[in-house]
Structures are given as structure tokens and as C-alpha cells.
């Protein structure tokens, strides 16, 4: 895979697959100039944070929280240990952008984290990398060695007196560790079970110290913001939605892959960049922000532009930018069954509503899919979701509930047909044609 296409890109400029990820290549692309300038000019920390605020960079991991604001929560004059942590535990079904950033542009993440550490007065950082992408973890460790040898990490960075060292920590197969406090628990060598908030990580984070956690793509965007200036970065996107973003397009398109586009680009343009619908079939629905985001039916999706506000107006979330495209061959009950199984598997078990509720959701959707649905099952599902949502420590319970609610809301007839006729509205051979082995036409 690679970053297959881009419109006015920043993050993917000058990348050349596996040939241009090393330090020398990054420096040739203008890498580390932002960090160097900040250190040489001894830019006040507040100025760096203000530049990020001006860019209106919003967290690229899923929540879309303004990054500059998050950074300003850190008690940067607090004299003790402080940490910056990168969340590369990319396991939200549909999302595979951070893998490509770490693979093809790892130094942009290192530089972004060093700038963040400077701005927040942190001396140590960790990048938590999804255990399944082992080759990427190894490459990132190599990139760290390069950066250390060149004086971009370690003590007294480029003779500035500023110290920052960064290490890679790998996950080992737990979706929940993408939740920031579960991730911190995991770095501490424990089960990845989310913590109660407050206290928030900015006051009580890794090892109980002030900590800021951002997504890989968020950190990777920082050098570009410092170099271009916050305002120019903002203008590359649209109001309240600064910059460009990587979108991972998967499912029924001809060219699944990552695409970097300015926020505010029409969905239709992204779909076209991804080679259009497979086999010329009709779009049925799209999950625009990773599996936890509510599904959006075709017509509403075609009216969307790809930015936080437009997708939110359509009743969903931009989330991590994982665009799962489903065509007319898709059985929505089966699609939901697989997603519900995922949340049931990945619930950490800490909160009863989520532990028990995700099991109920999966079992009920499973029986509907397998011709054993009962007339009141849709009401039952709805009641289970409302009894999970808002009653758990973290957002996994909500993430499991939102697909169930939105699939039933938009495709209720299909679920009702399954229950009444004990079979699928979409003939099995049509489904097979859609979801069988497929070779991308790159």
C-alpha cells in the first residue's frame, strides 16, 4: 500500500514509498527546519502553542479536539517530569493512515513530538505503536536511532540546552489501548483498562505526571504548521477545519488506499480519487470515520464534504478519517454483525454495561442475521444501546452502540425483512459477488 493520491498535499509531499523514509531524505524535503528554528531562536513556548492554535489543527485520532488548546492545558512551568505520548495504536477498523505515515515519513512524527515536548516542557516521550504492524515498529526504532545520532533527540538538542528523548513502545493486540488512558496504563505495564477522567492526563498522566497524548498524524502535521505558519495551514483546509488530512478508503472501491486531501473536499472527489465504485455498482452506504462512527446512507453521503462539521451535520463523525464504502451488494445486517462481534471481543470488561451489553448486541444481531430474529429484537437492541451509552468509563460502549443505532435507523426495513422472512433481502450470490476476493486496479 502507499499513499495513492493527493490534492494540495503536505504530509505526503516528496514521499517515495520505501525509498525516502530515512533522515537524509526527510532533511532534503525540508525536515527538521522547524525544530531547528525554534531551538535557535529560543521561541517562547507560548508562541509555539499559539501557532498551533491559529492553525485550528484538530486531533486526527478521532475526537477532533483542537490540538493547540490541548497543549495549553499542560502545566508547562511545573518543574517535575512531564511526558508527550504519541498514539499510533491504530486499530479502529477502516483506519490505516498512521501506518503509512510511520512507514514513509517517520521523522515528521519525531520532529512533531520534539516540538510538542519543547512547547510543553517535556523531556521524555513515547510512541505507542500497534503491535500488529511489527515492521513499522522496527522501522520507527531505526528512525529514532538516526535522529539520536544526528542530535535531534537526546540531551542538549542542537546545542540549545533543551533535552528530549523519545522511545517506541509496542502494543500486543488490544483495541482498547487506542483510548488514551488505557494506552497510558499499557505503557505502565498493566492491562489496558481506561481510567476515570478527571483527572485528565494533562494533570495526572503517565506515571502520574502531566502528559499530553496526540495521534500520529497530529504530530506529523506540526512541522508543517510551524514552517508554513498557523494561518496558512488553516487556509489549506476550511474554516474551523484546518489543513489537509489523510483519509483511508476501504471497502467497495477500485483503489482502496490512503488519500491526502484538504478538509472540506467533497466526498464525491475522494470517491473518484479512490477509483470509483467497484464494478460500477451503486453506493449503498458509507461509514465516514472508522467503525465507531454512525453509518450514512448514500444520498446523504454524496452531499457531504470531508470535514468535521459537514460529516457531523450528516449525523456521523469524521473520526479517524477511515472511509468504509459499501455498495448495493452489502447485507447491512451481516455488516453490523461483524462490527458488533468486534466490540464484544474488544470490550475490556471493566464496566458492566459495556461488558454485558456488547455481548447482548452481538448475540441479538447474530440471531437476526442467522434467521432466528424475534419480532421485538429491534426494540431490544435499541434498549441495550441506550443502557450502555453514557454509563461507562470510556467511549468503547458508545462506539459499539452507535453503529447499532444508525444501521437500524437507516436500514430498518432490511432488519425487519430478516426477522420476518428469516433470510436476507440481498440474495446470497449478489453478496458473494460484492465481498469476494478482489484485486485492486491501481
Amino acid at each position, binding site marked *: 500500500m502507499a499513499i495513492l493520491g493527493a490534492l494540495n498535499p503536505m504530509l505526503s509531499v516528496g514521499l517515495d514509498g520505501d525509498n525516502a523514509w530515512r533522515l537524509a531524505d526527510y532533511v532534503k524535503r525540508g525536515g527538521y527546519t522547524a525544530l531547528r528554528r525554534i531551538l535557535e531562536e529560543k521561541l517562547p513556548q507560548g508562541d509555539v502553542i499559539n501557532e498551533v492554535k491559529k492553525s485550528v489543527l484538530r486531533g486526527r485520532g478521532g475526537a477532533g479536539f483542537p490540538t493547540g488548546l490541548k497543549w495549553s492545558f499542560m502545566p508547562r512551568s511545573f518543574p517535575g517530569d512531564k511526558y508527550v505520548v504519541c498514539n499510533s495504536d491504530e486499530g479502529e477498523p477502516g483506519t490505516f493512515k498512521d501506518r503509512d505515515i510511520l512507514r514513509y515519513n517517520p521523522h515528521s512524527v519525531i520532529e512533531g513530538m520534539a516540538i510538542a515536548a519543547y512547547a510543553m516542557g517535556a523531556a521524555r516521550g513515547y510512541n505507542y505503536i500497534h503491535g500488529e504492524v511489527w515492521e513499522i515498529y522496527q522501522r520507527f526504532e531505526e528512525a529514532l536511532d538516526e535522529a539520536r545520532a544526528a542530535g535531534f533527540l537526546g540531551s542538549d538538542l542542537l546545542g540549545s540546552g533543551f533535552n528530549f528523548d523519545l522511545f517506541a513502545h509496542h502494543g500486543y493486540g488490544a483495541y482498547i489501548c487506542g483510548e488514551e488512558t488505557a494506552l497510558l496504563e499499557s505503557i505502565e505495564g498493566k*492491562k489496558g483498562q481506561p481510567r476515570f477522567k478527571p483527572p485528565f492526563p494533562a494533570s495526572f498522566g503517565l506515571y502520574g505526571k502531566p502528559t499530553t497524548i496526540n495521534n500520529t498524524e497530529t504530530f506529523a502535521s506540526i512541522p508543517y504548521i510551524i514552517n508554513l505558519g498557523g494561518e496558512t495551514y488553516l487556509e489549506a483546509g476550511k474554516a474551523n477545519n484546518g489543513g489537509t488530512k489523510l483519509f483511508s478508503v*476501504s471497502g467497495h472501491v477500485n483503489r482502496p488506499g490512503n488519500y491526502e486531501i484538504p478538509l472540506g473536499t467533497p466526498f464525491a472527489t475522494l470517491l473518484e480519487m479512490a477509483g470509483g465504485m467497484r464494478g460500477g455498482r451503486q453506493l449503498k452506504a458509507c461509514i465516514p470515520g472508522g467503525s465507531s462512527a454512525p453509518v450514512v446512507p448514500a444520498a446523504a453521503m454524496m452531499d457531504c464534504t470531508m470535514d468535521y462539521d459537514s460529516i457531523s451535520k450528516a449525523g456521523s463523525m469524521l473520526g479517524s478519517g477511515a472511509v468504509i464504502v459499501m455498495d448495493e451488494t452489502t447485507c447491512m445486517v451481516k455488516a453490523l454483525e461483524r462490527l458488533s462481534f*468486534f466490540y464484544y471481543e474488544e470490550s*475490556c470488561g471493566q464496566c458492566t454495561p459495556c461488558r454485558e451489553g456488547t455481548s447482548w448486541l452481538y448475540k441479538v444481531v447474530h440471531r437476526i442475521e442467522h434467521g432466528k430474529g424475534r419480532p421485538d429484537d429491534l426494540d431490544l437492541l435499541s434498549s441495550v444501546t441506550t443502557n450502555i451509552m453514557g454509563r461507562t468509563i470510556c467511549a468503547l460502549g458508545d462506539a459499539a452502540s452507535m453503529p447499532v443505532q444508525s444501521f437500524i435507523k437507516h436500514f430498518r426495513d432490511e432488519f425487519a425483512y430478516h426477522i420476518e422472512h428469516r433470510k436476507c433481502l440481498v440474495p446470497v450470490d449478489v453478496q458473494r459477488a460484492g465481498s*469476494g476476493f478482489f484485486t485492486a486496479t491501481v
Partner: protein
Amino acid sequence: MLTSESLARIDREIAKYPADQRQSAVMAALAIAQEQQGWLSSEAIESVANYLGMEPIAAYEVASFYNMYDLKPVGKYKVSVCTNLPCMLSGGVDAGDYLKKKLGIGYNETTPDGLITLKEGECMGACGDAPVMIVNNRRMCSWMQPEQIDKLLAELK
């Protein structure tokens, strides 16, 4: 129980964390112990715990929480197939079925010769490459059409 080579690797992991936070290296240390032994026995978990100065039960909690650790012996090769929705839309389920048929086993089973264990995995973060599978937690295999699966199986000996 842990070889000197494994211990040297674990030491490198411990050095990533503050001196009083050796437990932070437990995930990496368990992964190293599993690489050495092929799976994680209670003895292996206990020796990792002792080396890091933590309670064995705390190390066991970690080993049983994360699904890439194998607490029972597996075949020489463990092949995990992603069947989650984005992969399913591009043949992930078919890839799993193809493997089951070829190997004559189901998920969570091992071929009689002890060579291959088949697992159904969760999102591996590579949905654009579907179908995807991972061999022994390390090697990601992309675009696994029947021809590529045959080639992989021929290679795993």
C-alpha cells in the same frame, strides 16, 4: 529459563523507561519470551515477572489481556486472518475460508503435523491491503488472493 540473548533484549527494553518503572517493559519482555519459547507457559510468565520485580499475577494479567500472546502451545506458524468489516468487503472472509479448506482445520485449530495454527484476527490496521494476514505476530502479508495464499503455504515448512 530465559536465555541470555532474551535477557539482553529485555535489558534494552527496560532502558527505555525511568529506572523505577521496570514493569513498563513487561509487554516487550513477554513478547521476547514468547519468541524464544513459541508460546507463553506459566513458568515463562513467572520468570519475566521475577526479572522485572513484579508480582507474577500482574504479569499474567498482562499476558492474558492482550490477544497476541499465546498462553497455549501453537503450531510452528500462527496465521491470523483479519475478517473485520473493511477486510470482509474485499475478501477477508473468503481468505479465511480458503485457508480452512486448504489446511483442513478451523479457527483456533492446529494442523495435525503441528505446523500451522489458524486464528481469526481483529483489525490489523491495514484495511487497504485486504485480505491481510499476519504470520507469527511479525510478518504482515497483504493482498492475499488464493495464489498468494498458496505461495505462503508452500513457504511455511
